[in-house]
């Protein structure tokens, strides 16, 4: 479980996150949604410690993460996996080397054991016969899947995904969403996904947090989101013509 309490973050006197408090539950796909520039990525990066926060608390189980030193954070980070918006695969390494990287860095497994784990992770994300390819030779969807394979190679307790569907076609986007949900349930991970894609929200959103202008405006489930009385959320959820029609039919 990850708990965020009264989190504030600003950049050069501009408040980006204001007093955010939220709990992300284990074994569930937790979504942070909101418009571009609403502070979703800053919140996610603050939770994982890539941004230092101004005030507030970030708890991983019973550990106050934001007060830990580099070594302390390092121990928690070994239990994290993250899927970045642009995949962030290491250009100089092949697909298999990318997935093996965390194993090389933090385990004492033999080469055979590492190869076995790499092949298992790649198979889990449906990447076959691409071990020796470089990231530049992969499509956007394949890059995301390899990034997921890398993120789960150490069996993390926490999985973070920053806009996993950005730049993908709708079918591939659904596949990535399903993969994230399956992996979350399979390994009982605490997964946090940043997205502004309503398809993802309706497909995998078990717990949803809506952020607008750095303020948490709403939280609930995908079943509750369509019946919310939060105007800002409704403007976001029913932004396109099809959704507007759906809303009028609901009413």
């Amino acid at each position, binding site marked *: 479980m990850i708990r965020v309490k009264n989190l504030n973050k600003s950049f050069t006197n501009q408040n980006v996150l204001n007093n955010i408090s939220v709990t992300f539950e284990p074994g569930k796909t937790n979504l942070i949604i909101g418009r571009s520039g609403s502070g979703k990525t800053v919140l996610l990066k603050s939770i994982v410690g890539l941004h230092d926060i101004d005030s507030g608390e970030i708890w991983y189980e019973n550990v106050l993460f934001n007060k830990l030193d580099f070594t302390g954070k390092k121990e928690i980070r*070994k239990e*994290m996996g993250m899927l970045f918006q642009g995949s*962030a695969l290491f250009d100089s390494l092949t697909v298999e080397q990318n997935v093996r*990287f965390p194993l090389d*860095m933090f385990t004492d497994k033999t080469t055979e054991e590492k190869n076995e784990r790499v092949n298992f992770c790649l198979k889990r994300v449906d990447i076959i016969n691409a071990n020796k390819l470089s990231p530049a030779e992969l499509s956007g969807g394949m890059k995301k899947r390899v990034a997921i394979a890398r993120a789960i190679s150490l069996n993390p307790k926490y999985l*973070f995904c920053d806009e996993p569907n950005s730049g993908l076609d709708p079918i591939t986007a659904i596949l990535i969403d399903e993969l994230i949900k399956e992996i979350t349930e399979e390994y009982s991970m605490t997964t946090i996904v940043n997205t502004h894609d309503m398809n993802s929200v309706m497909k995998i959103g078990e717990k949803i947090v809506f952020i607008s202008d750095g303020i948490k405006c709403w939280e609930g489930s995908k079943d509750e989101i369509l019946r919310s009385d939060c105007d800002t959320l409704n403007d976001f959820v029913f932004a396109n013509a099809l959704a507007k029609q759906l809303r009028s039919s609901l009413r």
Partner: protein
Amino acid sequence: MFRFLSQFGLYVLLLKKVFSRPEKSVVYYRQTMSELVYLGLNSVGIITIISFFMGAVITLQTAYNTENPIYPTYLIGLGCRDSIILEFSSTVAALILAGKVGSSIASEIGTMRVTEQIDALEIMGVNSASYLILPKIVATLIFNPFLTLISIIVGIIGGWLAGTLSGVITSEDFIYGIQYAFIPYYITYSLIKTLFFAFIITSVSAFQGYYVDGGSLEVGRASTKAVVFSSVLILLFNVILTQLLLS
């Protein structure tokens, strides 16, 4: 002034991170080996070509500027040798490497920053500064002295060929000249300078790349800054080290 101090402070903090204990020695060793090839071995070609022509030009210029019966012709060989050892193979080669290696380091690390690859390392719990920069520093500290030695040898060969083929000096005089009043300490001096310059090129360029904020335009700017700052620091340290080591 405040900006300079803040940047210098950031540079010192980065170095502190770089020289902290590596997570896994074997991974760092492998990384250092690949950097030795990428930053060191791949620079042999350009250093060889430049040193050859540098030696040739020094010999010809020395010859044309000492066309006086008072000066024995072997002084051309001596001048060529000392110019190459004392200045050209260490300082000029370092300036060239600042352009080639420095810009490559800054753009590589800068691109990793803007494409979130450095964030990915941090998330995994890897000390990204140490993992990315330490192997580069170690590799250049190991390999650049060899580049300097190669440059000295090739430069003198270039000078000898240019001198003898153009007829400004005989082979015997040139060889006598390069052996005449030889001070072995000059080689040590040159190698010490090379070590300082190697550290400057790698650390300053890595610093520029590591703190890139923005996109491809900023990566390009960081790459240019890396070359400019490294070059200026090389010239500054050249003066300081010369005063300290030769006075």
